[in-house]
């Protein structure tokens, strides 16, 4: 399904996960490189220039966070992090260092492929290959040029901050944005330690956008990490 075969580099030391990733990715036509250590991973990344790097946070030599940091010095494509559950702090740290997304172990194939797709599309947007003036998710339409937001064709009036928040999430559609990232982009670097701003504006935004604000379908909470705008609505 990926016409030009996308190349994936997996840096992971657990053999079971490696076996599973190899089977799943090859079955879906990804070209695969694998290694078990961070240093070897960094070397392979320069050699093979993969489209996506999948990094486990717990590696035997250097930490996954360090791998991300060093990669991001030059590498502009997608990085997806694998982490254990209940390590929200690590996930946030990885995202803040430039990872595009994360997967909590254990995860299924469907989740893995979805995240890889979002990450790839993201990179495309970021690299300006696919500039978007209009973003549509389900019944929600955001027209970036006209600064207009509609649901089911009906205009929704947003305050400037609400609009800015929504557009930041929309530009990174499907990708988790950490609290810090959102605060920096919407309010500026001086407000990154004031997460309660976010809570209040997101609640307001949900009340305007969501058909049932108690069960949000567009603006999803990643507990302990941040928020994401749904990539597509489940049927």
């Amino acid at each position, binding site marked *: 399904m990926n016409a030009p075969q996308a190349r994936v580099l997996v840096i992971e030391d657990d053999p079971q996960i490696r076996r599973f990733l190899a089977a799943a990715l090859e079955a879906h036509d990804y070209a695969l490189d694998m290694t078990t250590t961070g240093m070897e991973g960094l070397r392979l990344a320069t050699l093979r220039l993969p489209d996506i790097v999948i990094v486990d946070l717990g590696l035997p030599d250097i930490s996954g966070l360090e791998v991300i940091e060093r990669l991001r010095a030059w590498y502009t494509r997608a990085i997806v992090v694998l982490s254990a*559950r*209940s390590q*929200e*702090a690590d996930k946030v740290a990885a995202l803040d260092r430039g990872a595009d997304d994360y997967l909590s172990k*254990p995860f*299924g194939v469907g989740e893995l492929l979805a995240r890889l797709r979002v990450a790839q599309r993201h990179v495309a947007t970021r690299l300006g290959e696919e500039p978007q003036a209009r973003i549509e998710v389900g019944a929600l339409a955001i027209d970036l040029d006209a600064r207009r937001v509609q649901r089911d064709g009906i205009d929704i009036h947003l305050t400037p*901050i609400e609009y800015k928040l929504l557009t930041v999430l929309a530009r990174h559609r499907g990708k988790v944005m950490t609290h810090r990232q959102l605060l920096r982009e919407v*309010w500026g670097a001086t*407000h990154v330690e*004031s*997460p*309660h*701003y976010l*809570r*209040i*504006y*997101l*609640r307001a935004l*949900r*009340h305007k956008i969501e058909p049932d*604000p*108690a*069960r*949000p379908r567009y603006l*999803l*909470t990643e*507990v*302990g990490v941040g928020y994401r705008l749904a990539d597509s609505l*489940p049927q």
Partner: protein
Amino acid sequence: MSANASAGRPDPDALLARLHEDDARARRGRLKIFFGAAPGVGKTYSMLEAARALRAAGTDVVVGYVEPHGRPETEALLDGLEILPPQELEHRGIHLNEFDLDGALSRHPALLVVDELAHSNHPGARHPKRWMDVQELLADGIDVFTTVNVQHVESVNDVVAQITGVQVRETVPDKVFDGADEVELVDLPPDELLQRLREGKIYAEAKIGSALDSFFREGNLIALRQLALRATADRVDAAMRAYRERHAIRDVWAAAERVLVCVGPDPLSERVVRAARRLATALHSGWIAVYVETPALAAALDRGARDRVLATLKLAESLGAQTANLPGESVAAELLAFARARNVSKIIVGKPSRPRWRDRLKASLVDEIIRGSGAIDVYVITGEAEALAPAARRLPSRSSRPFAYAQSAFVVAGVTLLCAALFGHIERANLVMIYLLGTVFVAARFGRGPSVMAAVLSVGLFDFLFVPPRYSFAVSDAQYLITFAVMLVTALLISQLTARGRRQASIARQRERRTGELFTLSRELMHSRDLAELGTILVRHVLAAIDGEAAVLLPDAEGHILDPTHFCTRGATPAHVMRYPVPGNDLGIAQWARDHRESAGCGTHTLASADAVYLPLNAPQRCIGVLGLRPRDPRQLEIPEQMHLLEALVNQAAIAMERVQLAQDARSADRQIEAERLRNLLLASISHDFRTPLAGIIGSASTLLDSASTALSEERRRSLLAALLAEAQRLHRLVGNLLDLTRLTSGPVRLKREWVALDELIGAVLGRLGDVLAQREVTVDQPPDLPLVRCDEVMIEQVIFNLVENAHKHTPPGTPIRITARAWPALVEVRVADAGPGLPAGEESRVFEAFHRARDESAQSGFGLGLAICKAVVDAHGGEIRARNLPEGGAEFSFTLPREQEPPAAPP
């Protein structure tokens, strides 16, 4: 002992005491003393011979210190024995060799040979006396061989001085000598000893002459030998008595005697004390040395005299006496009352020499005691009329202040002015009354001295100014002489009465203060459950009694004394606690005090050069710690009553502290038992809950791997794979819950608190459970402006998730679930209600216990952990979690989170 116990049976108390003694001995090392009449009889030689014999038999023998005095025979015996290197001390630039106590303790041989038990250690050693070193060795379980000459035994010290004319300063307390497990007399007839001396076997050539002239006279040696033989015989006698007691031979058992000796400030007291000791030994009785301090005496004694009293009491203590220091108004009355209370049978007093005329005027102390003694025998020891410092029996210091005299003079002057004004208007007899009034006032107010002065002044002035012929001391009428006399006598009487009243009041105050101090301490201690607080209370009370700095030093788990934290000076509030500036050396003293359960430091026998005293907090079962006290005036510690008060305070606190520690121990034991029970439950629960999904996984996977599986239909294969996935996910959840609970219960929970919107968390939970809850009607009721709460987002989301999942699992499919969030002034509440069967009655609070499942036979596999996790999380947040059955049916779980503060202002 009860009356019906047969007379032939041994006294149980005595038996018990012997058992305790045997016990203590089993742990203590054994002390053997080689005892001789004079230097040169061969004590060291015999000791080394005995040591060599034991060594040949395989005992681990080490020579700690031997003074060979250059005697070749002795040196030959040292050959082949292990000798402990001496400790080198430097004192004022001189290098001194001393027995190395710490070296001996760390070498810890079975038997240690230490010469000269009476030796005084050089400054810088731990103990001032070698016998104290030996005590410590014994306490550590090391057997000791040592030597003593008879003149070094404390109780015969003065007799020896009388015989030989040589005062020996180095002495060994009788209790050490008597406490020895074995005493071997090394005897040599005096002429043989003299022969050896002349042959130069004892001293070097040069010293022989002077030795022969002074100490080694034949008469001396005979007397010393007699003393040594008698001391040994006394020990044999004591052993015999012990044997009889042990074997119930009672017919020679005399009625218990107790000897009391009265100690005073004069030097004679020392002789009296030694005499008392000899009498007590001869009677095989206990004895008590008592010093009665009257306020008059206290005021009159100068520092030197007081020191003498204390030294005498210390001597008595070292001779084996109990000592007491009694405050009282009359020496005789106090002494007799004490004697009766203690069942004393004999009182010993010294007879101070004083002019006979004084005996005529006022009964001496001896007379008073004899008159009141009743059934108690009184022994009077006569002293030589040596320089007895005449105790200046003056009045309490109050009256001697010049200020008081000046004020008295003012009063008399005032009276005189008044009389001058009234003179001529009233009779002279009434003027006398006014003078008398003034004198009485002075007597009542300023004591005897000023009152006498006032009386004399009044008489003089009255005579001079108002009695004809005026302005002359001549008296025309002899009747006025009576007036003068009456005035003088009245003044004296009244001043005497008030002085006595004041004295009694001051004694009563002192007693009251002491009792009150103990009482308030015990009351305060009773109300505290905290070790640190108890320490602070103790320190406060100690400082109230003795001014200075004090601290409680507690040991760590290994028994090492730590730097104290409860330290304060007098007047500092308990909150004003700072670190005790203990020099490193002092920590060592405190450690020693704790390890040996004995006081150490200033005012004690151990490391007396320190400027602080360390008292162990000895409780019946353990030593809690150490009280360190650095008094502003170290002399305060030498007053026995102060030390007794201090000990009483420390003992009370120690018992209270032990009580708290025991309670803590009991609590932690309870906790451990509870934890153990939970662990067992957990293991049982895990093995059950894990086995079920594992069975499914193993079954499905092995079927798929089976060679025959190719025959399976595609549909069946897919269903097996789906089962595999579902069971694995179930295992994943179980492990997650288990990890959460372990993290939450294994120590303090670290919360990552942030401002969180609970409605958002409810939404996230419903999103996560979307598929599971698809078939249910789930209603959410929450106000649109639910306030933000500071909490750990991840954990609280887990709580809501567990509650909703719980409601789903325990109710029939399709029944509704209702989630409500409400804000109250002080808290925010979230309720999860279902329409299921509800909780069994009485189980409402138990459902939060780990591993509890309401219906054990339920088809739903719970893990019982979900609700326990919820409780741990909510507790950690300071909230509350509850479960109840709703009146309309179904169960409702609710939890609250406190709204500690208002969220920060809304953003721009």
